[in-house]
């Protein structure tokens, strides 16, 4: 309905001046500008093991409306044994190469090309050992989306196992943390129990298992 008369001298009532301290205003400003925790996206770093709401990852098996909420990988500390073995295998024989002839007298009788090929093959096999162990860690990942829990296992060179379960089918989530090292570095195994004949999903050696359990329980509505 149109106004019949508008007083030209009428002014909109102005809100009372704020008497907030600069500290309070800064806090309010920060709160207004900071994104909500649920929507905050974290850039997934290449070797990160735990990331909530990750961005910078594309996982092809996911549906078009699925959103990755949690990204998991085994704790980097579990790589220490194979790194140590690879280091020893690569470094220890180097000072021994000139002594090979005296250690293995039969090596002396071999032509030099045989020696070159044997040493090259040895270091190539070590490179393969490093690659396989790293890739087994890198591609052993767990993903929690808004619809599914997905487990990608790359256990052997020729074996990749992808399993997934719908969030609604998850009945219980638990974790097991045992031993000095797991407690010290705060990592453990997560067991996601599902209803029916669907096989359970397990994430091994993931960091902050208590937080992961809470996160998944929140998704399935147990919290």
């Amino acid at each position, binding site marked *: 309905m149109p106004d019949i008369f508008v007083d030209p001298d009428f002014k909109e009532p102005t809100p009372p001046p704020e008497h907030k301290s600069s500290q309070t205003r800064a806090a309010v400003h920060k709160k207004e500008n900071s994104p909500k925790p649920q929507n905050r996206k974290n*850039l*997934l*770093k*290449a*070797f990160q093991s735990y990331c909530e709401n990750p961005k*910078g*990852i*594309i*996982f*092809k*098996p996911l549906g078009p409306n699925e959103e990755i909420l949690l990204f998991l990988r085994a704790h980097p500390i579990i790589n220490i044994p194979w790194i140590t073995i690879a280091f020893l295998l690569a470094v220890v024989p180097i000072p021994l190469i000139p002594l090979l002839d005296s250690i293995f007298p039969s090596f002396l009788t*071999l*032509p030099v*090309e*045989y020696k*070159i*090929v*044997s040493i*090259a*093959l040895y270091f*190539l*096999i070590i*490179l*393969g050992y490093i*690659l*396989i162990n790293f*890739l087994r860690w*890198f*591609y052993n*990942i767990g993903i929690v989306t808004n619809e599914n829990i997905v487990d*990608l296992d*790359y256990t052997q*060179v*020729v074996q*990749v196992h992808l399993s997934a379960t719908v969030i609604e089918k998850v009945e219980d989530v638990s974790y097991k943390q045992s031993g000095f090292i797991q407690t010290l570095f705060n990592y453990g195994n997560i067991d996601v129990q599902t209803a029916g004949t669907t096989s359970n999903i397990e994430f091994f050696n993931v960091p902050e298992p208590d937080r992961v359990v809470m996160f998944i329980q929140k998704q399935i509505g147990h919290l």
Partner: protein
Amino acid sequence: MFGEINLLFFIKVPILVLIFLYALFSLVLFNKIRSLSEMVFISNLNISAVLTFLTLAHLVAAISLFVLSLVIL
């Protein structure tokens, strides 16, 4: 003389077979990582491409060693 040639032959064949099998294994590894990189793509540091490249370099090294062994042994 013949004894030495026979001995070298019996060393050469297992080395060539071993390197050939290793090259095959490298090829399988490369194919697997290529398919995994397509399945899981992580943009940070372009790590998926780096890993594919590393496995390719590993494959090339294995094939080169096999060819080198065929030539020089």
